[in-house]
């Protein structure tokens, strides 16, 4: 037994790390994050709807994109969630399971890539353990994010593409295309990133700077295959699929690009002193470099990220130490840029950044998630380089001491990351991403609503309907009947619609107390005494995970 352990210690350690990561991603999935956010609820409910009826909430049969909040989410995540919804029911666990499993599975590709760059086995395992529990990895695996699924599939595509470069086996190429196509069906970013990485690897522009261009034509064939297999996405809803891009692109938001105080009358493009081309190029360059800026990766949180589901309390994306070691990794990467595997990493980064760089946000974790495995490999290169450098120190005691402290700090950091995600993050998010007490109260409402004529919902959220559908596992056949009255594509803002007994409007107790056989749901503060003193009225209040009142349900007989 001991001999077997000694012989296979490396692979056993790898398996142990993988199993540990799976456990950490699945444990307490219903409690942290404590409740679903809009998009999770939409993904879960549409999975439920398709499972039950073959149609999404709008009645579209086996859609490739989910119209959802008129944002046309890629549908693959929902399809993959169906078995879990079937087995476990519609809840947080079944909705998030795909993300948890995808996040775990992506570690396999991470390991395979790290193995290409780190040759010493003990260092490799240490680096792999460190990277496997980076804050972003745990956080994004515990929330239903299509981008996390896409990241896993994109990593797979990248791995098989890289493998093809090494051993020229056409089966690897086919696997690569299948993974990339799947990534495109799971999240918008991959629709640009995948063809871009295929194109870049095929042309190898960095190599072309110092040698004759040699296009790898077979990879171009793979690119064409990708495009053909992705066509159905665009045919399904043509220009509506580009809705998200129209909403978020960099071109409109920053126009006229030159700072407004410097814009002169007349044609801004003819302004020789402050030409928009210069500033636009600066914006694009900055958007690209933002994803290798250690402060963005390690600590800075932009205002549009804070408070959103992609925000990780105490962190940005990477660990603090790892975000600084990235600098060392980048230096080593640049130094050895003539090696094909290093150029491959650069192309991966460029391809993954591109979809995020053309949107207005300076640094957007979700849209750029495809690059983070590559960034981790770069950090791993830096870590390996530093470990090797330390091992060459003259003083073995000092070297040993530094390595020991590094290991201790890493282990404490991993524990911190886990505890931070499980417990502290719940407090930081005030118990839920979209406060409203839906998780606690929707089930109670469900038990009561059959005995009442109407349910009036007063919620500040533009799409709070989805939480009632989700937490009540509401019959999709009923919801689909209302498709024609729902806000049309292109409309943003309030997307709530009246369905069944539910009416979405502002709650005004002085007037509404005259109504009978009515339930009122409100997230606003209510005067409990005033309501209880009204004949036939009662109130139930729901505390959320941080013990404040998320919602009140007023019963008026």
């Amino acid at each position, binding site marked *: 037994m001991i001999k077997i352990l000694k012989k296979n210690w490396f692979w056993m350690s790898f398996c142990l790390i993988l199993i540990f990561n799976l456990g950490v991603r699945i444990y307490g999935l219903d409690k942290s994050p404590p409740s679903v956010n809009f998009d999770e609820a939409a993904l879960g409910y549409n999975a439920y709807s398709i499972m039950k009826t073959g149609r999404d909430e709008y009645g579209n049969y086996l859609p490739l994109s989910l119209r959802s909040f008129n944002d046309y989410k890629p549908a693959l995540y929902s399809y993959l969630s169906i078995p879990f919804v079937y087995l476990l029911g519609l809840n947080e666990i079944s909705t998030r399971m795909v993300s948890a499993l995808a996040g775990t599975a992506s570690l396999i590709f991470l390991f395979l890539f790290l193995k290409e760059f780190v040759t010493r086995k003990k260092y490799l395992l240490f680096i792999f353990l460190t990277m496997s529990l980076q804050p972003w990895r745990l956080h994004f695996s515990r929330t239903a994010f299509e981008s996390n699924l896409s990241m896993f599939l994109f990593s797979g595509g990248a791995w098989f593409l890289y493998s093809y470069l090494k051993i020229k086996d056409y089966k690897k190429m086919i696997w690569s295309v299948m993974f990339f196509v799947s990534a495109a069906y799971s999240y918008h970013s991959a629709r640009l990133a995948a063809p871009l990485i295929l194109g870049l690897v095929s042309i190898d522009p960095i190599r072309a700077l110092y040698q004759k261009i040699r296009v790898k034509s077979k990879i171009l064939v793979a690119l064409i295959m990708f495009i053909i297999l992705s066509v159905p996405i665009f045919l399904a809803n043509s220009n509506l699929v580009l809705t998200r891009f129209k909403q978020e692109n960099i071109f409109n938001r920053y126009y006229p690009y030159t700072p407004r105080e410097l814009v002169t009358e007349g044609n801004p493009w003819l302004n020789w002193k402050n030409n928009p081309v210069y500033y636009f190029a600066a*914006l694009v360059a*900055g958007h690209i*470099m*933002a994803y290798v800026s250690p402060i963005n990766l390690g600590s800075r949180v932009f205002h549009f990220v804070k408070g959103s589901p992609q925000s990780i309390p105490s962190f940005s994306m990477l660990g603090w130490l790892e975000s600084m070691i990235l600098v060392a990794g980048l*230096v080593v990467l640049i130094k050895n840029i003539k090696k094909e595997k290093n150029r491959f990493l650069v192309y991966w980064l460029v391809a993954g950044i591109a979809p995020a760089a053309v949107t207005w946000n300076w640094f957007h974790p979700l849209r750029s998630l495809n690059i983070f495995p590559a960034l981790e490999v770069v950090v791993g290169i830096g870590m390996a380089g530093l470990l090797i450098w330390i091992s060459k120190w003259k003083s073995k005691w000092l070297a040993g001491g530094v390595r020991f402290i590094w290991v201790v700090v890493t282990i404490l950091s991993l524990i911190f990351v886990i505890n931070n995600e499980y417990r502290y993050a*719940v407090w930081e998010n005030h118990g839920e991403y979209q406060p409203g007490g839906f998780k606690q109260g929707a089930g109670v409402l469900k038990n009561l609503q059959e005995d009442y004529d109407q349910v009036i919902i007063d919620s500040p959220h533009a799409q709070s309907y989805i939480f009632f559908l989700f937490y009540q596992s509401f019959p999709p056949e009923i919801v689909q009947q209302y498709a024609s009255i729902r806000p049309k594509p292109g409309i943003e803002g309030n997307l709530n619609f009246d369905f069944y007994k539910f009416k979405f409007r502002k709650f005004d107790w002085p007037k509404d107390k005259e109504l009978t056989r009515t339930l009122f749901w409100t997230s606003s503060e209510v005067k409990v005494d005033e309501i209880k003193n009204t004949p036939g009225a009662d109130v139930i209040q729901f505390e959320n995970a941080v*013990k404040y009142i998320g919602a009140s349900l007023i019963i008026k007989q």
Partner: protein
Amino acid sequence: MNKWLLGLLVLILAVQIYVGIIINYPPTPEQLTLSASLIPVWGTRILTLVTLLVGLRWWVTKTNKIWGKNIGWLSGILLVVSPLFFGWWYLYPVEAIKVCLLFVGWKFMAYSFKLKAIVLIVLVAGLSLVSTEERSSIFHKLSFADAKKEANIRFDREDKLNDGVYMPLMVRRLSNNKVYVWYKEIVGEIIPFFDLETLFFQEVTPTEQKSIVIFYWVEVFLFGFGIYVLTKEKWQKQRLVLFLMLLAFINYLLLAKPIYLKLELTLIPISLIMGLGLTRLIELKKQYWAAGMFLGMMIVFIGYGVITNYFDLALRPSYWLDNRPQVYDFVYKNISQMEEYMGYHIKVTSLVGNSTGYCQYYLHGCSSSLLKMNGFDLTKERVESKTIYAGFAGEFFGAKVNNEVPPDWQDQLSRMGLVLIESLNIRDSVAYRYGNKIIIAVSK
């Protein structure tokens, strides 16, 4: 080639001096402290510029000697074109002296440099510490007091959860303990040193922070190429650059000033790395078309960056430069012209620091017992007769959480028995909650 580069250097300096004249910015406190408020501000500026140029000369010659070719010249040009270089001689003489001393130390640096390295580290650290009265935030993090507090807060918050994920107490203690939180705080102070946005992208102000442009955005690509060139050099030369980075890091950690000054010493090693890159591109341009194209793009875009940024600086100095000198410039210039109120008491704000230097500079004497420079609060004090009040709106009408100035402030002023002499709106909130309006009013 040297004559061309020298000519370029002179041209850039001429542009800077011209822009400086157009802006005509008020002196900073450190300029007044150094000159004892006795010499005109332009005298201090020219002296500072000369000091920097003398140091720069040593930088250029020594760098050329170590690295060969024209790397010293090219890195010197890249240094000088930076708006931060302009900021050094125009506004921050103490920082300029620090840089000059660094250049002096660099001049005497050789490959075996241990003792000289220690001297330079002590010099940079010492100057960073003494250049302001405030202490850098890293010192507040060194004690365990804050860490202990935060660890307790985190524990407390987690305990308040209704139905949280169960974590064994031991694990929670390993996570939320003062030692680890202390480490977190320290690392949190270090990470912002690695800030590409502040270094290279201030032209488009992505983080909306106040900062002078350090490098033009296109230089980030030249920097990347320079890193590649540097990695091919011998370790002794690489070590020198790393050492300069270390000095920049020490300055960043210990200096309690705005972020662009904390990162100022990165200008030196990064311009050296870029100079390396440029030199290599010049060598390669005949061999590789891409090198020639990249070199051309760098020259065009950096050149355009210089034009557009100095034009921007001339047009909106308040946007780029510290607004605090404008406060005392406005106050004391107006007071010096208020001859009809000779003999009146004068009360001046102190919200943006001690104004003694400004008082000396504009009024040529601050010894009068009529002049009080420790601020006022007219929501608590009685308005005194025959008194000139010069301060922020909040000192007249009360501090507001949202930094507001009452829309009927002029009426309120009249009701208080004050006559408005002058007012000025400044761009930045330099005295938060007290408004961006400076008011000079008199009670007769």
